[in-house]
């Protein structure tokens, strides 16, 4: 562990901080999540470390609970987008022919519609619940993972060891999970960090537009929305969640960079 670069250490520290805060939110938060405890937009004080929000709730508490929601949704959506995207992508590369054509053209079709607009349309006709949000975000984003996974797998698929496995009579599942996936993992892991950040931004955007997490549930995008009017009066409440989103994005990327460097120099690593 001595060889971790400083940038990765900083990234790890902040990522861990945010994740721990999310996990232990009920223990850390000084007040209840939707509890009105003070005046509107009180400045920071010993009582309210970050001040209060537009209806007098403690902003620190809102931030901690909001981080919990945002990070949970982003994580679950990333998991969904990764499993579907990479498995379908490698499957398309291994199968080739019309299966590959159908899947790829379908993905092209989805990608040709701006993701945000697509999500807004879907969410405006379906009930906006957290599982629904995760599913929509995960599936929409899996098209991007599919593209990457397919491109990487096509490269590996032409190698002799895959041909050897085919000639041995192996099933497609073995070829995907045992021959190709281990060799495709390092670019995919690096991409995962990036996708996670896009998910954070995506869910924040949706909440800001009112189609994401519904009040009184807190989330970072929602907090920006609730407090945005304060900016006109010089009240920085809306900037705090924005700052949190930015630092999380940067620190996760620092970690992803390091992971990418490490995995490519692993035993037998590609690249």
């Amino acid at each position, binding site marked *: 562990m001595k060889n971790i670069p400083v940038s990765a250490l900083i990234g790890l520290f902040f990522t861990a901080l945010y994740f721990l805060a999310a996990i232990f939110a009920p223990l850390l938060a000084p007040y209840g999540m939707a509890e009105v405890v003070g005046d509107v937009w009180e400045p920071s004080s010993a009582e309210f470390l970050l001040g209060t929000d537009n209806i007098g709730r403690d902003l620190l508490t809102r931030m901690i609970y909001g981080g919990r929601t945002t990070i949970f949704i982003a994580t679950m959506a990333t998991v969904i987008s990764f499993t579907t995207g990479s498995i379908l992508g490698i499957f398309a590369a291994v199968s080739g022919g019309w299966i590959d054509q159908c899947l790829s053209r379908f993905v092209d079709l989805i990608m040709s519609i701006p993701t945000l607009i697509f999500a807004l349309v879907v969410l405006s006709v379906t009930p906006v619940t957290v599982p629904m949000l995760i599913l929509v975000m995960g599936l929409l984003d899996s098209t991007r993972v599919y593209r990457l996974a397919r491109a990487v797998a096509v490269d590996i698929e032409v*190698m*002799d*060891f895959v*041909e*050897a496995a*085919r*000639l*041995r*009579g*192996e099933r497609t599942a073995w070829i995907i999970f*045992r*021959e190709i996936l*281990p*060799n495709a993992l390092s670019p995919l892991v690096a991409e995962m960090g990036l996708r996670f950040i896009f998910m954070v931004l995506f869910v924040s955007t949706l909440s800001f537009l009112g189609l994401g997490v519904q009040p009184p549930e807190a989330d970072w995008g929602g907090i920006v929305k609730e407090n945005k009017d304060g900016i006109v009066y010089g009240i920085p409440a809306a900037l705090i969640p924005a700052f949190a989103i930015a630092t999380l994005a940067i620190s996760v990327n620092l970690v992803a960079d390091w992971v990418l460097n490490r995995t490519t*120099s*692993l*035993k*037998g*690593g*590609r690249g």
Partner: protein
Amino acid sequence: MSEPLLKVRDLKIGATVYPPGEKPHDIEIVHGVSFDLMPGKVLGLIGESGAGKSTIGLSSMAYGRGGVKITGGEVWVNGRDILKSKLGDIRKLRGGEVTYVSQSAAASFNPAKTIMEQVIEASVEQGKFSRRNAEARARALFAKLGLPDPDNIGSRYPHQVSGGQLQRCMTALALCPEPDLVVFDEPTTALDVTTQIDVLMAIKEAIRDTGVAALYITHDLAVVAQVSDDIMVLRNGDMVEYGSVDQIINRPQEEYTQALVSVRSIEHEEKSPTAEPVLSVRNITARYKGTKFDVLHNVNVDLYPGQTLAVVGESGSGKSTLARVITGLLPPREGEISFAGRTLTPDFKHRTREDLRELQMIYQMADVAMNPRQTVGTIIGRPLEFYFGLRGAEKKKRIIELLDEIELGEKFIDRYPAELSGGQKQRVCIARALAAKPKMIICDEVTSALDPLVADGILKLLLNLQKIENVAYLFITHDLATVRAISDNIAVMYKGKVQRYGGKTQVLSPPFDDYTDLLLSSVPEMRLGWLEEVIANRKMESAGN
């Protein structure tokens, strides 16, 4: 006596290595090599991969490739120690006084520029010639190197000429600025044998006519014997032996040089056909999907149990396609294949597990034939598990047996492919094929990526295993020395047809057809004056021209 053109004293070269699972550290790859090269002489540097021959060659341009550093010693060119020179002076040296011909011309030429532009670039850039004079000089060199249409070939792009021609263009590129020294780094290794001798002859004549000095780097002693005045034998960064060509070839002093000279000394008695053939290829005609051109025409060959059929030919002759048809990767257009008394389904996807098991394959590039993320134990163990359902201790016992058979042993079981040498990788691939207990193994150029001595070891192993397991080999190769060493029957392929087919002695004895004659005579022989003799006597132009 005049001053040497290139004087290398106690040259030490280091590099940083990144062994898997360990910290990167510095190693020395050349340990104090010294030699002199007189103007107009040719010195051959010979050795296996990792001997440091290319690294030494490039040091004469004060260059270290990819993380390689010159750590000590002196390199004098024309009376200057270039290792102490300033970058500006070195820039004048490279491409001016010393030039370089690389192994793969196809990868070294810029595909977006014409050949002429690239040939004259260094001369013009160095201010040695005006553009006009440089072009005239390039045309004269094209003619001297025997390129067709020397006046216009320069206006073509690299992909518009053949591999052998491009390698000659590269030689023209190196000779154009009138250098004092040319470094030839394996210039003919990537070419077919029949093309190789033309390029070799062209290089030899060009060196003689221009009076340039050269370092000729190769792993093939027979090739270097044709063009050099002196030879230096290298191994693991040390000089093993240094002497005139005559002395090295005819009276090698060191044990290692003797081994190099007498490589391919395997004696193999031809076996006559026994029993029924294990594989019969009948009237196979095949083409690749989406093309209108047959790659194989009406091919008929038989392979007998426990014997070896060698399929020989140049690149593009269809020999690897034949292997793809037999394995079922490319279903043929016409014809049929019977294997072990059964007719094989054309597409491998519909073949029974038994058919797949009994027909195994070993590939040319062992490092891409194994999954880099699996250990040797997993790689060899999978066929055992897949075909015979072996598990746990039973499987491990069999893996160790196989590792012993390929002369590696139990300690290799947990290694990854990246931790093996080229020869060891190929051995593991052999073990994987054997694990299936096949009746027949297709060996697709299995030794062509290996050093001669390592390749020799692999061939001996294959022959031994054939005796023990009674497995038949379909041996695809372009190397006739290999064919002589191991085959019982030979099929010579030319443009998708079997040109000559029969027992080894019959195929390799006269009277020959023109193509077999060309192929046989093109194999470099380890004696002086062989090259001139062949060029004078041959009946047919090689396909690469």
